C-alpha cells in the first residue's frame, strides 16, 4: 500500500468504517420497505447484534470469524417474536411494535448489569476490518440486486404497489414479508457486530429512536428503486455533516426535515430509477 493511502485511511478510519456500516443499515431498511412494510427496528436489531457479539467476544472469548455470523442469531429471534403476530395485521402494527422494541431494549441495557448499564461495554477488541465491512456490503448489494431482478423482485414490487392485488395473483405475501424482516434483522445484526468491533465501545443510547429514524432517512433520500440507491443515500447523509462542519449540531434536525420533504415531494427518492427486468 502506498504511504499516502495508508495515511489517508488512518486519518479517516472512523469515517471509512461508518460509511460501510451505514450502507449495511440502509440495506437492512431497504429490504423491509421494498415489500411495502415499515419497520423501525433496524437500530434495535443492530443493538442486539452489537451487544450479543460483544458479549461473545468478551465473556466467551470466541474467535471473531465465529462471532460475526452468530451475531445475527439474537436479532433474528426478536424479529420472529415481533414479526409473526404483526405481519398478519396492517403495516402500522409492525411500525409500532418495532418502535416499542427499541425503547424497551434501551431500558434493558441501562438496567441490567450484564450489559454494563449506562456505561455500556468497553474494551471490545478491534477485530473488525474495513475489508470485512465492504466485502459484506458488496455481497449484500449483489444478492439484493439478483433477488430484485428475479421473479421474487417483481413480486415484491407488486406487493409494495398493491398488496391485495399481489395476493390475488398468487404472491405468497406473508412469506415474503417475513423473509424481508428476517433478512433485515440479519443485515442489521451483522452491522451491529462490525460497528462494535471497530469502535471498541458500545452504549445503550446508540440504538434508540434517533438512529432508527436516521436509518430511515438514508433510504428515503436514496429511494428504493435499486439496492444501490439506499447505500448512496446513506453515504450522502454520513458525509454531509463531515463536509459541512457547521451542520453537525443540527444533523438530526436535517435528517428529520429530509424525511418530511422526501415523503411529501419526492416519493421515489433522489435516485428514483427502476430496475431493468426482462419481460416474463
Amino acid at each position, binding site marked *: 500500500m502506498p504511504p499516502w493511502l495508508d495515511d489517508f485511511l488512518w486519518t479517516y478510519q472512523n469515517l471509512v468504517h461508518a460509511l460501510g456500516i451505514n450502507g449495511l443499515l440502509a440495506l437492512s431498511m431497504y429490504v423491509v420497505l421494498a415489500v411495502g412494510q415499515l419497520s423501525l427496528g433496524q437500530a434495535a436489531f443492530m443493538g442486539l447484534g452489537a451487544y450479543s457479539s460483544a458479549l461473545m467476544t468478551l465473556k466467551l472469548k470466541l474467535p471473531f470469524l465465529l462471532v460475526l455470523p452468530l451475531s445475527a442469531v439474537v436479532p433474528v429471534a426478536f424479529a420472529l417474536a415481533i414479526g409473526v403476530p404483526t405481519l398478519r395485521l396492517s403495516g402500522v402494527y409492525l411500525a409500532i*411494535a418495532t418502535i*416499542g422494541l427499541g425503547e424497551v431494549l434501551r431500558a434493558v441495557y441501562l438496567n441490567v448489569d450484564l450489559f454494563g448499564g449506562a456505561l455500556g461495554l468497553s474494551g471490545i477488541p478491534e477485530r473488525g476490518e474495513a475489508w470485512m465491512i465492504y466485502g459484506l456490503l458488496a455481497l449484500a448489494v449483489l444478492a439484493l440486486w439478483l433477488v430484485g431482478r428475479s421473479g421474487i423482485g417483481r413480486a415484491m414490487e407488486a406487493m409494495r404497489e398493491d398488496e391485495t392485488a399481489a395476493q390475488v395473483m398468487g404472491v405468497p405475501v406473508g412469506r415474503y414479508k417475513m423473509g424481508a424482516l428476517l433478512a433485515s434483522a440479519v443485515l442489521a445484526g451483522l452491522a451491529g457486530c462490525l460497528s462494535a468491533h471497530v469502535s471498541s465501545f458500545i452504549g445503550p443510547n446508540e440504538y434508540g429512536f434517533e438512529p432508527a429514524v436516521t436509518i430511515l432517512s438514508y433510504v428515503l433520500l436514496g429511494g428504493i428503486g435499486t439496492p444501490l440507491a439506499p447505500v448512496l443515500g446513506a453515504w450522502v447523509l454520513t458525509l454531509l455533516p463531515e463536509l459541512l462542519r457547521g451542520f453537525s449540531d443540527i444533523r438530526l434536525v436535517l435528517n428529520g426535515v429530509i424525511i*418530511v420533504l422526501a415523503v411529501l415531494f419526492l416519493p421515489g427518492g433522489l435516485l428514483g430509477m427502476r430496475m431493468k427486468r426482462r419481460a416474463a
Partner: protein
Amino acid sequence: MLAQQLVNGVLLGATYALFALGFTLMFGVLRVINLTYGFYFSAGALVALWLARSLGWPVWAALPAAAVASGVLAVVLDWVLLTRLRRIQAPELSSLMVTLGGVLALYSALTSWLGPDIRRLPPEAISAEAFQVGDIRITAAQLLILAATAVLVGGLLLLMRGTRLGLAIRAMAEKPDAAQLMGINTGQAAALVSFISGCLAGAGGVLIGLNFNAIHPYMGEQMMLRGFVVIIVGGLGDIRGALLAGLALGVIEVLTAGFVSSSLKEAVAFLILVAVLWTRPSGLFGRAVMRRA
C-alpha cells in the same frame, strides 16, 4: 403498603389514560398514527414549566394554559405535515413516515435549544401539603392530577356523547365521505380533533412532570411506548378501551416496581404489547380484525 401502591398506580394510570385518549381519538377520527403526538406532551410540560418559573404561575393555572398551547401546536403541525397527504389520499405508512421525520426534527431542535437536562418545577408552584387517610398518603399534587384527569375525561365524554359536535366527530370516524355528504364540515372537525388531542397530550405532560417532578425535552418520546401499548390493548380508536387499559397499565407498572423489580418496570409495557399482539391483536375490547387493504 399495597393500598398505597394501588393509589399511586391508579394516579399514574389516570395520566396514561389521559395521554392515550388523545392519541386514540386522533387515530380513530383522522386515521393517522401521528408520531408528533409525543412532542405535544413534552411541549405541554415545558410551557407549564416556563409559566411556573418565569411568570410565577401556580400549577393549577399553568396547566390549562399549557394544554391550550399544545392544542394550537397540534393544529399547526397537523396542517403543515398532513394536509398534502390527505389531499392525495396517501397510504397510511406515508403519513406515519412524515410524522416520524417531523418529530425527529422537532425533538432535536428543542434539545439543541434547551439542552437535554432534567428540569424541575419550582417548589412554590404546588403546595407540598399531604393528606392522610388511614394508611394512605395523598399529596396535593396527586389530588390535582386526579381532579384534572377527571375533568378532562368527563368533558371529553360529554362532548363526544352529548353534543352535535361530538356526533359529527363520531360520524367522521365511522365514514369520512358519508359525513361530508351529510353536511359536516370535516376540515373544521379534523382541526378540532387535533386541538383536543393536543390539549390532552399537553395536560398529560404537565401532570406527569408534576408526578415525577422531572421535565425534559425527550419525555414525550419515552411516553409514546406507553401510548402505543394503551391504544393497542384498548383497541385502536376505542375511547373506553384506552381509559381502562391506561389505568390497568399504571397499576401494573407500579405493582411491578414495588413487588418485583424496578428495572422490570420499563419492560412490562412492552411485554404486554407483544402478548396482546400475539393473542388479541384487535385489542382486549376490539371487534374482530378488519383488514383494510
